[in-house]
């Protein structure tokens, strides 16, 4: 997992191909430790993620609730069709805006 702090946002990129109950816990813990009530925005880079299950989706919602209300959660590099389908099916695409790359996501936060 890659964690990077930029002035606009905290950037977290899970490194494994699966975002499931095992891997999402580490992401949640890392973000919780880094954010710790800073109200910062969060950009989640899903470039490496090929599969996300219900626990992974639950983790996204946890992250969203962690940054709320002052921060925003943005996704970038959502390339896997399966992950996209899941986000659409559960309408998460409506509340977690997606950008083709990190620059576009950061620009959206300007």
């Amino acid at each position: 997992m890659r964690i990077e702090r930029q002035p606009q946002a905290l950037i977290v990129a899970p490194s494994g191909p699966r975002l499931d109950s095992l891997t999402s816990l580490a992401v949640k813990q890392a973000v919780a430790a880094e954010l710790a009530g800073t109200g910062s925005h969060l950009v989640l880079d899903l470039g490496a993620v090929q599969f996300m299950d219900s626990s992974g989706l639950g983790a996204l919602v946890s992250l969203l609730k962690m940054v709320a209300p002052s921060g925003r959660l943005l996704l970038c590099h959502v390339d896997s069709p399966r992950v996209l389908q899941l986000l659409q099916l559960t309408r998460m695409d409506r509340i977690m805006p997606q950008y083709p790359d990190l620059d576009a996501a950061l620009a959206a936060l300007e």
Partner: protein
Amino acid sequence: MNEAQALSERRRSEPAAAAPVAERFRILLVDPSPQALAHIAAALAPLPCLVAEAGDAEAALLATRQHPIDLLLLRLQSCAGDVLTACRQIGEAPDDRRPAVLALTPFEDRALLDQVLAAGVTDLLPIDVPDGLLRARVAQLLNAQRDARQLRLQAQRLRAAQFIARIAYWELDLRQGRFSWSPEIEAVFGTAVWRGLETLTALTQRAHPDDRQELLAAFERAGRGHGPVTVDVRIRLREGPELYVRLDASRLAHGTDELRLAGTVQDLTEQRRNEQLQRVHERLSAAYDTIRRDLEAAAELQRSLMPRLQNPLPGVAVHWLYRPAAAVGGDLHNAWALDPHTLAFYQFDVSGHGVPSAMLSLAVHKALAPGALESAGISRRRLRAPEQVLGWLNREFRSDESAPQYFTMAYGTLDAQTGVVLLAQAGHPPTLIQHADGTLETLDEGAMPVGLFADTEYSASVLQLRPGSRLILYSDGITDCCDPQGEPWGMARWQAFVEQHRQTPAFELVRQLEACLLQWRRNEEPEDDLSALVVEWTGR
């Protein structure tokens, strides 16, 4: 003198029946006179020995460096300082390589005799000793060498055995209360601290308070002659962890040592730790058995929640696949008659797996159970409005913010008289609608799963079934079911499967679906719950 001359070795291979020496030894003869050397060698010929000869001190040292010898035989006519120096050097070899030294000297030369004795010889004979006596003495010295070697070997083996058994020997003078510990104590316990325990008082103080009385009682019993007495004690040395030791004590019965105890101390720490691990393992096994039995009971309970009737209403048939990944699963479904012509049906999939998911699934099932709603003051009429059911569940099962647990769901009603279906979906995989003519529709209205966000609103779709149409509700365990290479079965294969089986009766369809998925996994257990609900409307 070259080496070959200095060390002409004569092999004596024939066994000497008369000689008591039982194995082959090496003897080195030292004398400047070749004739004398030849004479002694001939005298020793009946012994089963290898005899090497050296003319001077230098050749003797070279020979002993090349081969360890058992006996050095010096023949000294007069004072030969360098030979005696070489003799001393040879005598400084380590125990297991040190030869016996036999000197032949003229006994009347007292000064020479003193010098020879000072050089550390083992034995002396007059220079004109008869051959028979020389042979006998040599045999005696060699046998003594052999016995000493065997004793050393036995001692080595004993030390090794003590080390392996982690056992050491001690004696205790009861009058003074003082211990003497054998040297192995350090090898066994790997510490010099044990040496600090030189008195019974010191040992008792180091013992665990709960063990002290038993320790003293055991020593007292041994002192009264009720030996051998065994006692296990926990000892804490100055450094390091607590040790479990076993002390065996007996009174020494011989001589005047009536008040001496002797015994062994054995380190049982590791053995005891293994026993403790074994006990922990047994407790864990018992706990696991309890959990397994509980899970089996829970699984039985969950299976009992399946739809009661395959034909809850005239013209309606319900069939399903239900195969949880663990003993219990997070998927559930139901179908029942709301009234004489309306069927309610649903399927949901709780996030995560296993017991936490199963517990929420039971709660959801219970909340929707026929009869439960009335007692909760919810109008039965609302069960006819799928979007309202999802909205109500979303408020009822709002999850904890830190650990969201939610479920995706499809809930619908079917009017058995008209074939009209109202169906609401909450993040659940697209429902398949298969008609009798083979056409396949998907209803993929996306919506938030239930329990994530308080203000979620749901909507219902209206579908018109035709006689012979069937609705197929399923969880993502079907489409996400991966083969051993990680390739998911996927929506395309699932739809193709349904289309291929359009003539297959619903009860057979779900059976073949399970077989097909297990084959896809090469018979490995699925990682997610597999569940599907088929609602078939035959029409009037």
